[in-house]
């Protein structure tokens, strides 16, 4: 193995490299999990919109406007996202204590992280659900009521 300083032991570099690779992998997997969660949420909301097509058609026939339908679908998506975020926060609150000895320069319950991550997740969930929600606003009540 090459050494930067021949007289110094290479233990420190090796340890840092392992930590760096682990952190990178951890970040990559976290990003992947995040992307999968968004794709999943998009799929679930798309499915729910398809399931609720008849209801949306009835609501439109009774006077609902596209903005009202958008609110209805987004509220459901936000409800699901909020449930996930709250569960995640509770689990994170306890799980971070187990990682306390691995942390440097940051508290297990770091207010910035505990505020930023849920905000980012909620915003991402909102974005992921906006496509099926917009699709719901284009439901033709005539078609929805005819093909129950």
């Amino acid at each position, binding site marked *: 193995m090459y050494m930067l300083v021949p007289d110094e032991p290479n233990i420190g570099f090796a340890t840092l490299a392992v930590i760096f690779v682990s952190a990178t992998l951890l970040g990559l997997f976290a990003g992947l999990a995040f992307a999968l969660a968004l794709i999943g949420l998009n799929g679930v909301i798309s499915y729910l919109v398809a399931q609720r097509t008849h*209801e949306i058609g*009835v*609501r439109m026939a009774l006077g609902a406007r596209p903005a009202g339908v958008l609110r209805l679908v987004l509220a459901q998506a936000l409800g699901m996202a909020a449930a996930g975020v709250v569960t995640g926060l509770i689990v994170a609150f306890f799980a971070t204590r187990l990682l306390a000895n691995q942390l440097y320069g940051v508290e297990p319950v770091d207010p910035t992280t505990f505020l930023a991550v849920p905000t980012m997740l909620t915003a991402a969930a909102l974005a992921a659900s906006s496509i099926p929600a917009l699709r719901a606003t284009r439901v033709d009540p005539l078609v929805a*009521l005819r093909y*129950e």
Partner: protein
Amino acid sequence: MEPLIQLRNLEKVIEAGPNKFWLLRRINLDIQAGEFVTIMGPSGAGKSTLLSILGMLDGAWTGDFYFLGEAVHKLNVKKRNELHKANIGFVFQSYHLIDNLTVFENLEVPLSYKNVPHKERVSLVCDTLDRFHIVGKKDLFPNQLSGGQQQLVGVARAVILSPKLILADEPTGNLHSAQGEEIMQLFKRLNDGGTTIIQVTHSERNASYGSRIIQLKDGWVVGDNATAGTPVGAAQPA
């Protein structure tokens, strides 16, 4: 007196490739406030299509449509929606109640889209439940009700905002005769109270509750026993 509804040369056409299919042809009708009109005709005659246009659910047609003097054909979707919300109640053959809402909540739905304050909403729903004798069913879900009871809720939902016009598409089509009779008598009472009713039906018996029958065939008005002076389909098939 200004008619509630005026249709002039109303046509609906669908295009499939190079072919055009007319669902409605040159419809000219005047419907006065307080009438009880029945639209009849064989399947495919255009009855439900006409009802959807009158209910402003379908905006893809040509011709002139005046509702209370307002030119519907010139309105954008938003204004058409407002006009529909303010004046029209729907009763469907398949009831179309929302399955995951209770009877109380189903009655609340049209009110929520007219921004009726919560307190007034509750009061209106309670009055309607009382008027239709369904107070005991208010916490039940549609699948816990019989067909007749579901249609009763459907009619209650249609009239909760005291619309000027009720449109009913085969309202007794899924009911047994006694339940159908009950619903038709209810329509008759609403009509006696001044509400204009337009129903689509195949049943001569249901038509007998009304005062006027419009016959459709292949999209044309081929018969209308309206009072003298009311124009019927200007052009009819040979």
